[in-house]
């Protein structure tokens, strides 16, 4: 599912409960994460739930894979991956994740970063892109 499709689907959701239910649906469809990569080194700390993130670069394009033990967080990760995957490091650095979550009606998820670690995940991705 690409970002455009996700954004369109969010437009039909009426309240935050529905948005969370949709996040859970998205989370169920997150690509499998390699078991052997669920290591402490790949952990993104700062979330109540566990999050792992790895990246690869092929040519000038970056690919991220991520996982969490919470489905809502997996849903947020799926949106992040749709935003960031298959982009150049420069595009990753410039992508407006905050604006996207606001458009989706998930701005509260940004302010509640202590609970879901969204900020930490965005920060880690930007850091990886900056070092690429």
């Amino acid at each position, binding site marked *: 599912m690409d970002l455009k499709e996700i954004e369109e689907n969010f437009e039909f959701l009426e*309240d*935050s*409960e529905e948005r*969370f*239910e949709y996040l*859970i649906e998205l989370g169920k469809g997150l690509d499998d994460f390699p078991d052997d990569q669920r290591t402490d080194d790949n952990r993104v700390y700062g979330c*109540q*739930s566990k999050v792992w993130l790895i990246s690869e670069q092929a040519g000038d394009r970056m690919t991220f894979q991520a996982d969490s*033990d*919470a*489905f*809502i*967080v997996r849903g947020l990760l799926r949106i992040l991956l749709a935003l960031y995957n298959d982009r150049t490091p420069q595009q990753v650095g410039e992508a407006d994740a905050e604006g996207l979550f606001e458009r989706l009606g998930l701005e509260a998820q940004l302010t509640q970063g202590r*609970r*879901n670690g969204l900020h930490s995940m965005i920060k880690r991705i930007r850091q990886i892109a900056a070092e690429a």
Partner: protein
Amino acid sequence: MTSPNAELTAWIAEVRKQFPALDVQVNGKALVYLDSAASAQTPMPVIEAMDDYYRSKRSNIHRGVHFLSQEASEAYEAVRPQAASFLGASDPDEIVFVRGTTEGLNLLAYGLGERALQPGDEVVVSEMEHHANFVPWQRACHLTGATLRVIGMDDRGVLDLERAAEVIGPRTKVVALSHVSNALGTVNPVAEVARLAHEHGAVVVVDAAQSVPHMPVDVTELGCDALVFSGHKLFGPTGIGVLWARRELLEAMPPYQVGGGMIQEVTAEKTTWADLPMKFEAGTPAIAEVIGLGAAMKFVLDLGWENIQAAEHAVFAYAKEQLDALPFVKAIGSAPSQIGVYSFEIEGVPAYDLGTMLDQRGVAVRTGHHCAQPTMRRFGVDATTRASFAFYNTFEEVDALVAGLKRVHRLFG
């Protein structure tokens, strides 16, 4: 609802009017507050008592000769005998105001542990302790070369008394036990454990944070030597708690913090400590919070334990019955003595998701390890969802929780 419940329902409805925060709307829905074990709501008399201090008594205590300072000192010191009496203790000097249970237990782990233990000594705790009654003792043992021993529990979350009798022995210096487990709701047989400990001359420390909101707590009946609780779980302010300990114990312990207000005389060569309880109250205390705590204890006693327990037990029994009946809910902890707390998991539903989805419906529960990782490990889980109850919770709120759980379960089904 049957008729005895109608009476209880009316009593609860009346009591709720005293708690303004219970009227908050969450996402356009009525708040269902099932997180009182983390922090209980505050009734108007507590809010008013603190407001009155700031409006008409605002001043530092003890060392002022002026009018306001005397007013504030009187209001503050009036809470000390009140707290003693609340705990069935006779000597107000045995009451030390602390920041909360955590600070009280750190003070005890310093005075009875860090500064008193020697290699070969043992401290005994249970597997169901909150980290606040586990980590300070663990650290004291590490620093002194003493050994920390842990009493386990069975699959229901009942303390293993037989094991306690084996573990507690001549080397035991301190037994630190929660009266009620914050993660499981188990009421522990403190008096029996205290008897075992005293046979060997050990000191008994009780973490009463989760018992004082639910039942009268009497240090004489419990037979303990020290006991700590937090104001904010007893419908009082945050940042204030009570430490009670037998006078001989307090006199023998060194001060935990030093500074103003706790000295007799200071010279360049040495300082002598003030008498009890000032020896343990360095610096300006949480004056408004102590006064608020006094109002909270009075509020509880005015409501009456009989009324409080009748309402709370009925709603909690209803909650247990409804939740146990949900086939997808797995209770974590089911001790016969369970009180105030229902901890559970739903297979395939991460606690974080469960808590977040319930929040969307206005239902406030707590998810995570509840600062009780040894307990979580015992049950083989990382986290649970915990619904906790106070006397202001209603039968309808239980229904709202159950409806929310059914909906979340369907989402993940």
